């Protein structure tokens, strides 16, 4: 049975925790609005880029002469996985969900006796994947000190990936990130970026047989456009991740604040009961003392 003093201490400590989580929730909510806005603004670019690439892909008749980034190396031996997570914790299942998705994928690859290489972006993912996949991590990238992630960071990663690809260090490249659906739901995604995945053409009517004029030739355009497309996809992943992280943190902190409130209520009731019990006990002692006289 905890003493009154213990209970009082616990209530104060939970109260100060609640203050912190509340503040974190407010901060996350403010950041979320900004992140969500930029994620939505960025979508236009990546969608248009995708459309152009798809159109180009459809107009190429001889797939073998196409750039390797589009068609692939023809092999499927070495897989490069880029796992993109946050640099900070306390955001619910955000980091764990990405790592879980990635782990499942890794196991699949290893089971099929293929080679695996991992690049982690964001320190939390590196920490989680160190257990079990330490030997496969070839590089850890973290932008912890940067306030805002811009296209430059995305193109930095892209140029690393493309240099590796040109040295034939991998055949397939996949990125893992969380897609922002709403504040309460984020979906971990695995997206293959090299070779460009042949997407189910949903806008079939749009593609049909528009005769494009290309200036310069298709292949030349593709050669320059594909690296840009990878940058775009990675940047998109960054933006989606940023929005998801804040959303996830906001709901996690909201839950924590509510839990703290519940706990305070429970402890207060407990505290009042014990206080009353102590008073009653003292009264009984006095009365029985007086009676025995």
């Amino acid at each position, binding site marked *: 049975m905890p003493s009154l003093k213990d209970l009082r201490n616990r209530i104060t400590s939970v109260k100060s925790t609640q203050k912190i989580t509340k503040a974190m929730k407010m901060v996350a909510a403010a950041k979320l609005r900004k992140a969500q806005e930029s994620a939505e603004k960025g979508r236009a670019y990546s969608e248009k880029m995708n459309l152009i690439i798809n159109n180009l892909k459809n107009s190429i008749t001889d797939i073998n002469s196409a750039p390797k980034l589009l068609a692939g190396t023809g092999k499927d031996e070495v897989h490069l996985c880029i796992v993109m997570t946050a640099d900070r914790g306390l955001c619910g299942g955000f980091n764990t969900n990405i790592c879980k998705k990635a782990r499942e994928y890794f196991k699949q690859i290893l089971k099929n006796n293929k080679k695996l290489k991992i690049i982690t972006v964001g320190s939390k993912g590196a920490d989680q994947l160190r257990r079990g996949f330490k030997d496969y991590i070839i590089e850890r990238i973290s932008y912890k000190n940067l306030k805002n992630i811009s296209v430059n960071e995305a193109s930095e990663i892209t140029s690393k990936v493309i240099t590796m690809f040109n040295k034939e260090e991998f055949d397939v490249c996949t990125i893992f990130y969380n897609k922002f659906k709403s504040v309460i739901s984020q979906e971990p995604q695995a997206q293959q970026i090299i070779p460009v995945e042949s997407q189910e053409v949903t806008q079939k009517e749009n593609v049909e047989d528009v005769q494009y004029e290309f*200036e310069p030739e298709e292949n030349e355009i593709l050669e320059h456009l594909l690296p840009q497309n990878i940058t775009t996809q990675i940047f998109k992943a960054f933006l989606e991740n940023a929005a998801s992280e804040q959303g996830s943190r906001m709901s996690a902190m909201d839950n924590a604040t509510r839990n703290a409130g519940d706990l305070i209520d429970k402890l207060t009731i407990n505290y009042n009961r014990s206080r009353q019990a102590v008073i009653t006990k003292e009264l009984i002692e006095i009365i029985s003392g007086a009676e025995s006289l």
Partner: protein
Amino acid sequence: MQVDIVTPERVLFSEKEISMVTVPGIEGQMGILDQHLPVVTFLKPGVINVEKNENKYFFTTGGVVDFKDNALSILCQEVFDIKDLSNEKINELKDRASNKIKDQDSTDHDLFIANTMIDELNLLQSK
């Protein structure tokens, strides 16, 4: 026609009923009028001119243009409204281009782009 100028970060310009746009295509200046044939082309650094009642000018460091169904999409890594382009920014871009020229790894294409960029920026500054 519908004209959109998009960067990875935002949509800079989006308007309907534009009669003509001039873009710095990689193989020469290119004017795109209403009801143009579907076309995809690359941009070199230069000025995009959108003709309206009042002409609007943008400076881009390169990008892709896609025209289809009477809608023109200009995707650029970087694009600036000329009105907002300060002298410092121009100098910064110039420095970046000259670094590219000094870089040993630059390909012919990179060199061409960097040189064009410096020429175009000088032209802008002299105006």
